[in-house]
């Protein structure tokens, strides 16, 4: 539905030239909950602003249903934005803020009133309808910004960290509410966050960004289980990185040799080099056991109890370290102690070869 093709945005020139977006290509599908995830300053907001029309890309194209979006001024794009800074109109009340888009579209009075009432109920702001926006809290402002952008029922809603100012409970509620809204209205959501958990729980697909470029696009499960690069594996969840050597590749499976000399099947990735590579293994995908017969022998350094699970920090014999995460059972203390010799095992196909 929205096709971003080769979009680059450069700020400054000469020595201070800086790429806020670096050749970004991504297709966002209709009715999709699409998330841009990445650390602060990686260009998430810039990409949203290109789509909304506030930033002209240095090069590249953006089309919606085949039509060139870049030719249209912001007011002609069927896209609404929930701004990171809310950008509520300070001289208008909550109700007037939410009604603004509908008024600009020239909707009849009765329809405006009805839609605005629905929106205020949706974000639980009905009681504060006639307050000035300076007289409500940050979280309430965020909800008004959301209602204001939703009210004109755009084809695409751009949300720039819309939940970041909410407390934990309201945030969870709004996450569910947003997801429900998106499925019910069929509006395509492009959602920006730097909270990986929020991205994993809400999205249909996630694009992980870093330094102005998209590193990987995929479903939450794809991204989590099969990160393609060290950056993605590191940014989302905890990961162990192991040096490995590719021995052979066939039918989408590679055989690798680990530092300990053990050999195991792993997932390959497009574009990985031959020979020495890095293998990513999630802590909860590995198990701790006796040294004998394990893939990776080592010494147990630390046991950290987390309530739901326990983390075992192991110093591998090769010098690397490895964390194993095990689900806790009631009233069963762990059978190992710090300083014990232990072995780490994980099933074939669990390790993911990384690109870098």
């Amino acid at each position, binding site marked *: 539905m929205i096709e971003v093709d080769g979009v680059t945005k450069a700020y400054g020139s000469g020595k201070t030239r800086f790429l806020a977006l670096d050749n970004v290509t991504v297709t966002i599908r209709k009715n999709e909950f699409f998330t841009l995830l990445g650390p602060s300053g990686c260009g998430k907001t810039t990409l949203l602003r290109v789509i909304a*029309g506030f930033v002209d890309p240095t090069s590249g194209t953006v089309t919606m249903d085949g039509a060139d979006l870049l030719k249209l001024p912001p007011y*002609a794009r069927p896209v609404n934005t929930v701004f990171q800074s809310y950008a509520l109109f300070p001289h208008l009340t909550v109700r007037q803020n939410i009604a603004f888009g509908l008024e*600009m579209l020239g909707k009849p009075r009765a329809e405006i009133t009805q839609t605005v009432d629905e929106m205020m109920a949706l974000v639980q702001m009905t009681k504060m309808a006639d307050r000035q926006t300076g007289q409500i809290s940050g979280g309430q402002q965020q909800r008004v910004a959301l209602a204001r952008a939703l009210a004109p029922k755009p084809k695409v809603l751009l949300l720039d960290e819309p939940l970041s100012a909410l407390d934990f409970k309201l945030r969870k509620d709004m996450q569910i509410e947003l997801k429900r809204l998106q499925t019910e209205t069929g509006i395509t959501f492009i959602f920006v966050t730097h909270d990986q958990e929020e991205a994993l729980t809400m999205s249909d697909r996630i694009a992980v960004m870093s330094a102005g470029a998209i590193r990987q696009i995929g479903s939450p499960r794809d991204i989590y289980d099969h990160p393609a690069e060290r950056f993605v594996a590191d940014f989302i969840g905890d990961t162990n990185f192991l040096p490995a050597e590719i021995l052979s590749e066939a039918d989408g499976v590679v055989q690798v040799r680990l530092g300990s000399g053990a050999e195991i099947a792993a997932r390959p990735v497009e574009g990985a080099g031959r020979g020495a590579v890095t293998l990513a293994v999630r802590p909860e995908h590995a198990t701790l056991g006796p040294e004998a017969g394990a893939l990776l022998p080592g010494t147990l350094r630390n046991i950290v109890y987390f309530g739901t699970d326990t983390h075992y920090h192991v110093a591998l014999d090769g010098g690397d370290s490895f964390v194993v995460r095990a689900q806790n059972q009631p009233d069963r203390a762990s059978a190992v102690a710090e300083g014990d010799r232990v072995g780490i095992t994980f099933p074939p196909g669990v390790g993911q070869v990384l690109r870098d």
Partner: protein
Amino acid sequence: MASSSGFDVRRQFGFTTIALACFVMLYLPVVLLVVYSFNAGTSVAIWEGFSLRWYRSAWENVQVQEATVRSLVLAFWASLISTSVAVMAALATTRTRPFKGYSAIFAMINQPLMVPEIVTAVALLIVFAAVKVWTGYTGLGYLVLAHSAFCIPFAYLPIRARLQGMDLSLEQAASDLYARPWQVFRRITLPQLWPGILAGAMLAFVISLDDVVITEFVKSAGQDTLPTYMLGQLRRVVTPEVNAISTVLLAISVTMVIAFFFVSRMRK
């Protein structure tokens, strides 16, 4: 901070004396002027008791009446025109992409602040003289035009400051919500800009009310404003009537400037 490093300009030798001298130089003449406007005698130097006779005399003086009305009409039109132009100029210099020649345009808008007033006055005199011969028109229009022109930077600066202080994302949010540029201006920019506009207009009003040099050069016969009337009077006999008029002008200016400060500090 200055004081924590042991340096405080207020404790430097002679600071207080210099400061006091400056204040005395600035305000003593004004205070004397105001005091002698209430003098009962005809001297501007010898106090002969309190009286409002010079205020009454000024009030009843037909020439003063005419000059006052002319000054106010002139200041009204000059501030209206210069403020309208200043709003457009401020929008053009803050709400457009950076363009080539931006600094040049900025300097040109503020030109009246930098070019010696007497030069502008002479230039206007020459041009208007030619236009007068050509059209035969001798009305107040020349003064209105001249005042509007030199008031523009005074109206422009507070308006521009206000525009620069405004959150650009509000206007973006409005256009994101389908508002056309004109609607964005009407519904979002203008409601937040009006304290700046008011401040600019008041400043322009005071500046116009106050002007001598350009007015003196541009005015036709019988087009005295209050300041040029006073200047003319000073060449003859000086009576406290001039003090009385000055005091009233001073009162108007001070009121406007105080109002200007309040308005320009107003929040959304």
